[in-house]
């Protein structure tokens, strides 16, 4: 019941602050554009001609198999949603903890007969349900539109929602830690973005480390790589998987999840030790 109350509270807050509405509006716009912009003519299971944003294109000779075209398109969308979805979700949930810790508000929550751990994790769960619902709407919508137009059903695109969600959860854990420590919404949004940007080039950690002069610096790069979320690798695996080429490697997923879990754990510990 208490957990339910916290989830409802998260949704109500998102609704009142128009974050939910904003998210749905952006997603719907995206889906609408997709619906009207994409038109494909399929002859004998192969792409013959189509229009994208009103521009007609012809495919000379015997075009590529439509299934390949769809998978390629979907992998591009998956990469887009991977970046856009995580950024939108971070933006939508960044004020959660700072708002909870507001002077005069936190007193009301924390003095109820509920443990601080339960309180923070309940809100976390609320954010997870919120973002999952939004991602399902966005990715599910893209999937339905593309599939309906091409009659090619590629379930791998739907499965791709899972790693997107996992990366977001990892960042959400980090965001909770920042939120508990600083009570600042701008920092809770900007630092995850900074982390995202920092983590991308670390995919080339071996080359960077090799180019470093000092062993210490090289070691630091390697350590950072292993600690931080592996956004680039997961993104690459994601598109490869939608294309039907590869299965995602487990290690990047596991270490990314571990990063989020450790951050969330630290946030819970810090929240429990805090004086309000």
């Amino acid at each position, binding site marked *: 019941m208490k957990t339910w109350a916290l989830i409802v509270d998260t949704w109500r807050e998102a609704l009142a602050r128009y974050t939910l509405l904003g998210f749905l509006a952006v997603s719907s716009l995206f889906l609408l554009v997709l619906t009207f912009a994409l038109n494909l003519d399929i002859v004998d299971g192969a792409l013959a001609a189509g229009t994208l944003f009103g521009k007609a294109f012809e495919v000379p000779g015997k075009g590529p198999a439509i299934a390949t075209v769809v998978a390629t398109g979907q992998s591009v969308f998956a990469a887009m949603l991977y970046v856009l979805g995580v950024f939108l979700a971070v933006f939508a949930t960044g004020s959660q903890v700072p708002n909870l810790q507001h002077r005069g508000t936190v007193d*009301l929550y924390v003095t109820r007969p*509920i443990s601080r751990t339960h309180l923070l994790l309940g809100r976390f769960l609320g954010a997870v349900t919120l973002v999952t619902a939004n991602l399902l709407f966005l990715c599910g919508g893209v999937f339905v539109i593309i599939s309906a137009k091409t009659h090619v059903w590629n379930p791998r695109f739907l499965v791709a929602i899972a790693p997107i969600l996992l990366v977001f959860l990892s960042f959400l854990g980090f965001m909770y830690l920042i939120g508990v420590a600083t009570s600042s919404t701008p920092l809770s949004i900007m630092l995850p973005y900074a982390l995202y940007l920092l983590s991308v080039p670390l995919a080339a950690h071996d080359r960077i480390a090799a180019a470093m002069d000092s062993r210490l610096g090289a070691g630091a790069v390697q350590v950072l790589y292993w600690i931080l979320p592996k956004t680039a690798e997961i993104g690459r695996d994601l598109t490869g998987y939608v294309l039907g080429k590869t299965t995602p490697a487990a290690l990047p997923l596991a270490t990314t999840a571990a990063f989020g879990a450790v951050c969330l754990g630290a946030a819970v510990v810090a929240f429990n030790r805090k004086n*309000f």
Partner: protein
Amino acid sequence: MVSRDVPAQGAGRSRGPAGSPENKAIAADVYAGVDTDAAAIAVSGLGKEYRHGRRRLRALDGVNLAVGRGEVFGLLGANGAGKTTLVKVLLGLARPTSGEVRVRGRDPRRAAARRRIGYLPEGHRFPGYLTGEAALRLFGRLAGVAEGTLDQRIPELLDLVGLAGRGGDRMGRYSKGMTQRLGLAGALLDEPEILFLDEPTDGVDPVGRRRIRDVLLATRRRGTTIFINSHLLSEVERTCDRVAILHQGRVVREGTVADLTTPALRYRVRLGEGQSAAPERLAGEGLAVVSGNGSLEVEVADLAALNRLVDRLRADHLLIAEVSPLRAALEDVFIEVLEGEARAAGVSDHGPLTTDHDPGGGR
């Protein structure tokens, strides 16, 4: 003021600086025998330091207190005395630097120990996106109150605090007084055994104050222990059985309102109409005559001295119409105590005392 039996524990009056060795001995004596399981609230040797950059600020310094079940206790003090800090420690919001607190015999930092405890924080702010009703439901659910009970209790509470019909409005649109009354309703949601109120009538108009006071009196009749923080002395005087005065983190005076407001032994002796006593006749006995005009205000060393005075008046064949103890307003006591503290500290490092005369809140 309804007179009630004050539990023996903690009723000891601590005069003089709380930090003095003799006072600590008294405290140890008084609290050693306290059955902390029986007391609603027990505080012993409580210290709390805040860090302001490098400087340490001692918000609480060796506080000892005990509040019995069903008692209405008032904590008085100027702004910055440490009242809010003490309540925060009592609710597990802040951790003590030293000493310990027990609420119904348990550590309030444990979630289960906060069951059936109501709290109206100072300057509280409900999430502005909630309506009054939704806020009560949320915090009722977090307190573990059953859904059916909430359905029934929320309208009752809204009615009790005078917000019937306004429960559907967003809290962002509530006035200060409405917010405060909704906060009180929130504090009463799970039928608290102990109710903590931090400046409950701060910023509330006289009508709202009256309402809050009525709710408190009704709550107290149900046997709820009430702990009120206030710098509004007349409020406390009307509601509390017992008070403590907190000054710079130390309890400098504690006792029943009646005790505190009855200074040593001052009496008014009113004579029959048209009669008067020669002041020098009385002063000769070592009795200070404070004032006259048909009545005398006298300060006597003990009851025997008072009776010698009466004998003397009777020997002069004067008729006595009334002998009654004189009470000071709590505010006078408060100012007197704090001025005494300032003198004891050598120089006063405290600005002008802020007290509230409660212009419109009269009964």
